[in-house]
Structure formats: C-alpha cells, structure tokens
C-alpha cells in the first residue's frame, strides 16, 4: 500500500475508497518476421527499411499468418494457465490514422487465441521491504494482433513523418482483469509477466524499446457499490512510471470525487516529467471501430495430441501439447527450486530472478566454490550487485565474472584472506583491470599470516607494549581484549586472522 493512499485513509476513514486497476499489455512477439508479412523485425533500422508491400497496404496484398507468432501466443497462454482456443478468429478494427496504412488493424476481437488464465505475482512490503505478499490476477484474454507504424510530428514545419518499420509487427495483447488496487501491485504483476515472457522467449519484453507497453484502466468506488467510471492511462513504458501513473490517477480520482466532481470515461497519458496524468487530445471523441471479420484469413485452427490428424506432421500444424511439453521452467518454479536447493531466503530468490542473468551467475559461483550457498548469496546480492548498481551495470556487463568471484570466495573459505580483505579485493576487481583475485591478493599483500610462531611473536610484542591494557583484562575487564586484537591487526596490516589472534592472546593472558 503506498503512502499517499494510507494518508488519505487517515483523513477519509469514514467511507474508504477502493481503487480498481486493470491492465492491457501489448507485448511485441519475439520473431524474425512480422505477423502477416515476411518483413524483418528489428528495433533499430533506417526508417521505412523494413516494409513489405503488405505492410504498406499496397492494394491486392493479403495477410499470411506467421506460425512463430501463433506458437509464441500459445506458449504465453499456457504459461499463464489460459485455456487455448482450438479455433480462433481474426477481425478488422477500423480507424483512420496516418501510421495505420490499411485503415484497419487485424486483431482478434470475437474469439481470441487464449482466455481465462491466471497470474500469481509477489511484491515486498514493510519498512525494510522484507515481507513478501503474493496475489493473483485473472487473465481475461490473450489476442494476436498487428502493431501500427510510428508517427513523428514536426510541429515547426507542421509535418507528420511516418515510419512503417513497426507496422505489422506481431503483438500479443494480454488483458488482465481489474484485480489490482495500486501502482505497486500493477507494477509487480507486469514485472512477473515480463519475466515469464522473457523466460519463454515469446517476447523480449524490453519496456524501454517499446516491446512491452501498458495501458492501465483505473477507477475508484466504495466497497459494495458498483465500479466507478474508469479512465485509461495509455502507453506507459516503464515499471516505475506505471506505479506512479496508477497511484497518481487513483488519488486524482478520489480527490475529484471528494470535491464533488465527476470522472470522465477518457484516455489519459502519463507525463513523466510532471509526474501526473493528463487527458489525451482525442479530437474524434468516441470511436466506432466497425469491427468486421477479416475475410482473408481462415479461422486459426490449433491441434492437440488427440485432435492431431494422422499423417500430418508437427511442422504443418501447431500442436498445443507439443508446446506444453517443451515449456521451460517458469520464474515461480525457479524460485521454489532456488530456495529448496540452496537454502536461501525467498526474497533472495526474487532478487536472483529479477536481475537478468543473476540466477545463472549465482549458480555458477556456487558450483565453483566450497562456500555454503547461504553465504555465497550474500556476496552475490549485497556485495557484487551493490557494486554493479553503483556503476549502473547489468549482470551481463559485470567486470567480475562468476569464476573470478568463486576464486575470491575460495580464498576466503580457505582462510587465505580475511573477509574484509575479500571485500577490498572485490571492490578492486569491479574496476575491471583484468587481474585475478590471487594476483590482487599477492600485490596488495593481503594474505593472512599463516605462520603461528610469527603471530605469536607479534602478539607478545603488542602485550609488552600495552601493559596497562593487559592489567585491565586480567582484572576482569574482558572488553579491552578487543582493543588488543585491534592493535595486533594494525601491527599486521589486517593480515592476521582475528579468530586466531584472539586464541593466542587469550592463551597468553591466562598464563
């Protein structure tokens, strides 16, 4: 629960408002070519360089469905526990827009490819964000459709430039029921969906590249009463902005209603600079999309093991069971396995999955070191990840690879170096000078003094130089022992194993 809303409840505790949030998410399908044409799909390419005759809607061209897009949608549907429709249909949705060359979008309005699914997502609450809360959101439908092109408006020259590279790229529209109630929940649900899509490979789902775009439907009402009028906040392209936009919109609606105003059923956009939602200029008002069956595409028929006609190979049709059998482990399954296999905390399993590549990194380190995974996780999450965040690097860009971190942890585990020396080395490693941990340890002379008699002599010398402290300890003030240990550390430039030093000192003091 976010703070604004909590504050709000304090003031209006008589009749609390209940926010209702539903999401429509457009995920670009990760495929080599577009959904109905053979043009390539690429994020960065010269304008209008990836446009087939069909994409430009040349008269007489016809759509041909890309099998890969169908498989991606089936995979996603299965991963979200949807029922997959063995027969689905394509429709035309009409509206005039400069980046929609045909004057209509091919979508699945009447009978989508997947329906009635479920997504479980978890987020952190509490002052330290240490408490995990798990919730469910129902998936209403997943439909296949075409992306539009892009319009670039040049106000100075009052020109609109059109880039059709994106026109016709395959989209999966995932519609989530209004089961969420705040920005944090919405963001967590989308994050989990994003992880699932990336695990499946059905979408790269990189929000910054527009591969995952979120529209949020927001309304507020009093419990027991019908839902309020909703607004739609469109085209949100980061999780942070999603949470902010939803929370802002909830609060705006509550304030509006509390002040005796009304909520308009309108489309709004999130201005990330101002941190607020503003109405979109919608000149045409309410659109009638004049839906019509797409006559150029026969019904999309999918098969399962039972209905698969004999003498038809898997290459000719899409077999739902075949795809089901090959689904990779989903994030939720991976997290459970991590907790069970390594004994780490559940919240750590979330961190491992949330950072792209971190789980693999962690498991590689564990495989190469004798250190207990429960200890390794701290080094990976608190230390390494901390450094990466500091330098704004992803796990894949990490200057320290898993082998080198494992080497370092092995040095620590074998008591060649102290924990503080290990931290120092890691920090150096993060500078990316290409040295091995051992080279670094040697160079900086960080090895612990392994020679017992050498340590013995150093301890003896420290005790002799600090008779006052020795007397105090002997008089029963045990706390002063730590000071002696510190003095020994200083004398050895922190190369003494503190446990060993303590043992030697205690032995000498008791003599």
């Amino acid at each position, binding site marked *: 629960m976010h703070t604004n809303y909590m504050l709000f409840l304090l003031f209006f505790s008589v009749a609390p408002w209940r926010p209702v949030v539903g999401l429509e998410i457009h995920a670009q399908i990760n495929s080599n070519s577009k959904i109905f044409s053979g043009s390539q799909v690429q994020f960065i390419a010269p304008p209008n360089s990836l446009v087939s*005759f069909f994409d*430009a*809607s*040349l*008269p*007489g*061209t*016809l*759509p*041909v*469905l890309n099998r890969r897009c169908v498989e991606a949608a089936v995979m996603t549907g299965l991963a979200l526990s949807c029922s997959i429709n063995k027969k689905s249909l394509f429709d*035309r949705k*009409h509206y*005039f827009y*400069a980046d929609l*060359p*045909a*004057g*209509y979008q091919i979508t699945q309005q009447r009978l989508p490819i997947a329906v009635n699914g479920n997504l479980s997502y978890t987020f952190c609450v509490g002052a330290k964000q240490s408490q995990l809360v798990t919730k469910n959101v129902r998936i209403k439908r997943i439909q296949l459709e075409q992306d539009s092109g892009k319009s670039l408006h040049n106000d100075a020259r009052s020109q*609109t430039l*059109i880039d059709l590279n994106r026109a016709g790229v395959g989209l999966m529209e995932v519609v989530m029921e209004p089961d969420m109630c705040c920005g944090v929940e919405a963001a967590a649900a989308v994050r989990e969906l994003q992880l699932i899509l990336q695990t499946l490979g059905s979408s790269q789902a990189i929000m910054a590249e527009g591969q995952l775009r979120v529209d949020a439907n927001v309304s507020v009402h009093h419990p027991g009463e019908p839902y309020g009028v909703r607004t739609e906040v469109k085209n949100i392209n980061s999780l942070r902005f999603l949470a902010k936009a939803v929370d802002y919109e909830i609060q705006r609606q509550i304030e509006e209603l509390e002040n005796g105003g009304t909520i308009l059923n309108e489309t709004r956009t999130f201005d990330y600079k101002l941190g607020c939602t503003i109405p979109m200029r919608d*000149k045409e008002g309410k659109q*009638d*999309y*004049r*839906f*019509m069956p797409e*006559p*150029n*595409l*026969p019904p999309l028929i999918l098969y399962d093991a039972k209905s698969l006609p004999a003498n038809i190979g898997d290459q000719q049709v899409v077999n739902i069971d075949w795809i089901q059998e090959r689904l990779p482990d989903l994030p939720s399954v991976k997290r459970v396995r991590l907790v069970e296999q390594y004994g780490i905390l559940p919240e750590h399993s979330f961190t491992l999955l949330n950072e792209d590549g971190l789980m693999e990194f962690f498991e590689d380190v564990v495989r190469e070191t004798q250190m207990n995974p429960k200890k390794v996780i701290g080094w990976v999450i608190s230390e390494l990840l901390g450094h990466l965040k500091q330098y704004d690097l992803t796990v894949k860009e990490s200057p320290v690879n898993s082998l080198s971190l494992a080497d370092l942890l092995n040095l620590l585990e074998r008591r060649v170096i102290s924990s503080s020396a290990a931290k120092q080395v890691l920090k150096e490693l993060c500078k990316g000078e290409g040295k091995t941990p051992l080279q670094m340890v040697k160079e900086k002379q960080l090895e612990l003094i392994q020679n017992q008699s050498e340590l013995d002599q150093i301890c003896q010398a420290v005790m002799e130089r600090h008779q006052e402290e020795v007397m105090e300890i002997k008089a029963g003030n045990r706390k002063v022992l730590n000071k002696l240990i510190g003095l020994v550390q200083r004398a050895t430039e922190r190369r003494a194993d503190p446990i060993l030093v303590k043992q030697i000192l205690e032995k000498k003091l008791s003599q």
Partner: protein
Amino acid sequence: MLRAALREVSTALKEGRVSPTELCQRCLSLIKTTKFLNAYITVTEDTALRQAEESEKRYRRGQSLGDLDGIPVAVKDNFSTAGIETTCASNMLKGYIPPYNATVVQKLLDQGAVLIGKTNLDEFAMGSGSTDGIFGPVRNPWSYSRQYKEKCGQNSRLENEDSSWLIAGGSSGGSAAAVSSFTCFAALGSDTGGSTRNPAAHCGVVGLKPTYGLVSRHGLIPLVNSMDVPGILTRCVDDAATVLGVLAGHDPKDSTTVQDPFNPFELPSVIDVSKFCIGIPKEYHIPGLSSETLAVWSKAADLFENAGARVIEVSLPHTCYSIVCYHVLCTAEVASNMARFDGLEYGHRSNIDKSTESMYAATRREGFNDVVRGRILSGNYFLLKQNYEKYFIKAQKVRRLIANDFVNVFNSGVDVLLTPTTLRDAVPYVEFIKEDNRTRSAQDDIFTQAANMSGLPAVSIPTALSEKGLPIGLQFVGHAFQELQLLTVAKWFEKQAKFPILQLQEMLDHADALSHQKISLFS
C-alpha cells in the same frame, strides 16, 4: 487467325504457321482499329512485343513453355501488374504503378503468355455495365456486328451510331469486349457478383468463375474479399479449361486458396450427357426475365433432356433474399477495403493539407466516384456497432442459408444447375444509364451473385442470338471444385448451341470510317 480459338492458335504457333511477334503485332493493330470500343485502358505495346520476341526465341530453340507461350492475353485493370499502371478505372489509382504482379498475372507470364494490355471496367469493379469508370464506357463489339445491324434494320448506321451502341456488361466489360473483338485470345476478369459472367453473356464469349479458393486473389485489388474470384474469358470452353489449368492451385500468398493440389485437365472430346442430372432452379423464373431468354433457357433444358440427361426442376428457396444480402455484405467489405486509400502511401493525394483528416476527406472525395462513395457510406453504416447484428450478422446468416440451398440441391443428386446468366440481351448505353448503378447491379447480378455467395464455380456459355441479333448466355453452376464436370457439361452444350461467330466487317468499316485506315486482317 485472330478469330481462332486459343488452342488452334497455339497449334499454329507450335507448327510455325505464325510467329508470336506476328500474332502480337496483329492483335496490337486490331486494338488500334477498335480503339473506339474503349476495351483497353492501357495497351502495353512495348512490353508485349518484347515478350513476343522472347517467346519467338523459345519456339526457335524448341523450348516452348506450353499452350500459352506466345499467346496475347489481356488483364482487367484491377489486377496488379509490375511496372504497368493499374488504375481500377479510378482517379484514386490513376498513375499508380504496382511493384509486383498478381499471382495469376505471374502465372500467365511464366507460361510465356504475352500481356497485351489492361482492360477497362467499372470503377473498382463496382457495376454491371462497364460504364462507370473514369475512362468512359466500354462499347459492346456486337453493336457493330452484321448480325445486330441486319436484325435492327439500321441502314443509316452513321446517323444513329452514337445512340445505338450497346453496353458490354460488367464489370469486366473491357476483358469481354477484348476477347469478343479478337484483340486477344483470353482475358482475365474478376467476378464478385457476376462481373465475369455478365459481360461474357453480353459479348458472346465464355466467362468462367472458378470455385472460391481455387485461384489466388493475391494482387487482385479487392471488391469483396470473401466473394472475389479471378475470372477467365475465352472464346470457347476448352480454352477456359486451358487457362484454368495454368491459374489454379494453392498460393502461399493467399491463405484462402485450398492446399489440395490441382490437376490441370483437358476436357473429353466425346461427351455423353446422359449420365448427368441437370437442375433447373424454379426461383430463377422471375418476372424480369425476357421471353427470349426464357425460351433459350427452356430450349437448352430440352436439349439436355433429348440427349438423355435427367433434367429436373429444383428449388433454391432463399434466392429472393440473395441480392439484398449480397448488397449488405458487399458494401461492408467495400467500406473496409477502401479504407486504405487515404492518399498517404500511393495513389491520389489531395492538395488540401490543412490537417491529416481534411487531407483524407478531400483525397477520398476527389478519388472515388459516387458509386464507390455510396457503397462505402452504406457499408460503414451496416458495420456500426448498433447495426452490426441487425444487418451484417443477419446477412451472414442468410448467406449461409443460400449456400445451403445449393448444398441441398447438389446432395439430392443434381450435377449441374442450368440458369440464365442475365435477364435479357445487352441494352443500348442510353437506355442503361437511365437507371442508377445500384438498381442496375441489383437487376443484373440477380442470377449470378448467388454463386459468389456460396463460392461455387459457374460458367456463362454464349447460346443464341436474340431477335435483335445480340448474344444470350446461359449459366451452368457446378459443385465446389468440380470444374472438370462443370466444364464438361458446358462443352457439350457449347457444341450443341452452335453460337454464331461475331461478324465484324461492319465494325471494321466503322473503324475505317473513323480512321480512314485500310486493314485486311480478316482476309
């Protein structure tokens, strides 16, 4: 030579009695002579001669590509032709040069056919007279035939010529007139509600509408996607079968084509019709049907009966709802298909650029004629959320009933239906334009559009001359994908009908009078 059937001229080419270039030049020359028919929008003289030359080389090397190699063909101007202007007879696409060939065009070219020109039509194929395009109406070659002139007793032809000429039927009137006037040996039309069969009947040629899904629509600029079929116009049934053999088959670029392999066929030369059952739908006996056409129809039925075929009266009970239903579905798809013509990517763009919206509106007003705009308007009305159930869904249901009528009749043992193609023979242009396009289309598509609604193959066969000396065609409708059976019956009938050949001397005199050119192509 030009009056020969495709098969005959193909043999002549193979035997070296005529060369592809010579043939092409003769056709081009005749196109010039008959320019007043307005059958062609674009004559592709240069590319045609180049293609003929290529063909000639192949023949010389003994590497002919098949029956169509070197044969001049024409293509309706709503099929995309790479590098050749494709206008749909509309201001909207004037000057539009497609970068690709329609699959059917490509298939013709791959067989060595010589594309001689793009033929005239009603704007975007919306019409039944070939009168409503920006390039003006197509004139029916029979207007200038000896048969017509004699029967009409018009001696003072030059005085009357501008009011007496007849419409060619439509919307593929240009293609029908081109085949009929011997300027090409086969032509592509398109058939959405009868647009190939109707002008075939009026111009006295064979017009075949294949089963929906048998021939690719890729590159055919659509009118109604769920009904459009590329049509074939030829001088005889055998030729239609030959061209069908080239065009038919699955196209990966058109998902509505069937995957089953198509085996090109040759029609038997000896046909026994006694094993066939011919159905005569009683609902096609309607008040508007001319007595002459009715008589021709009855005579045809007798012909089959006398030859031992079983001829039975059948019922297609939903026929009377067909044309209204067709209108709703057609306009709805038209509204959708025409949405792409916004002036941005290709075609006409208005100078008005105050805003994108005003540019759209002006472009579409300037680019489309009243007929197209009217259909867009009504189609969008039927698709509105509040009307969708009432009109579109209902029309779809009725369409299913109409298709089921045919299924029921065919399941009862009928092999082929025999019907008129049109209500009557061709009318003079001045008569035709007294009614608006919508009324005309509703009347003229009456016998033909049901085959489009149900996807069935149908062919119009020139049968007899009316009292005025004008062609009357009859239509055969067959089982889906049973073109072999349909055309076999049609071929037998064609042989019995002995439809007379168009006597063109009058027309050439007419041309002479116009151009003072002396030609002797028919000597």
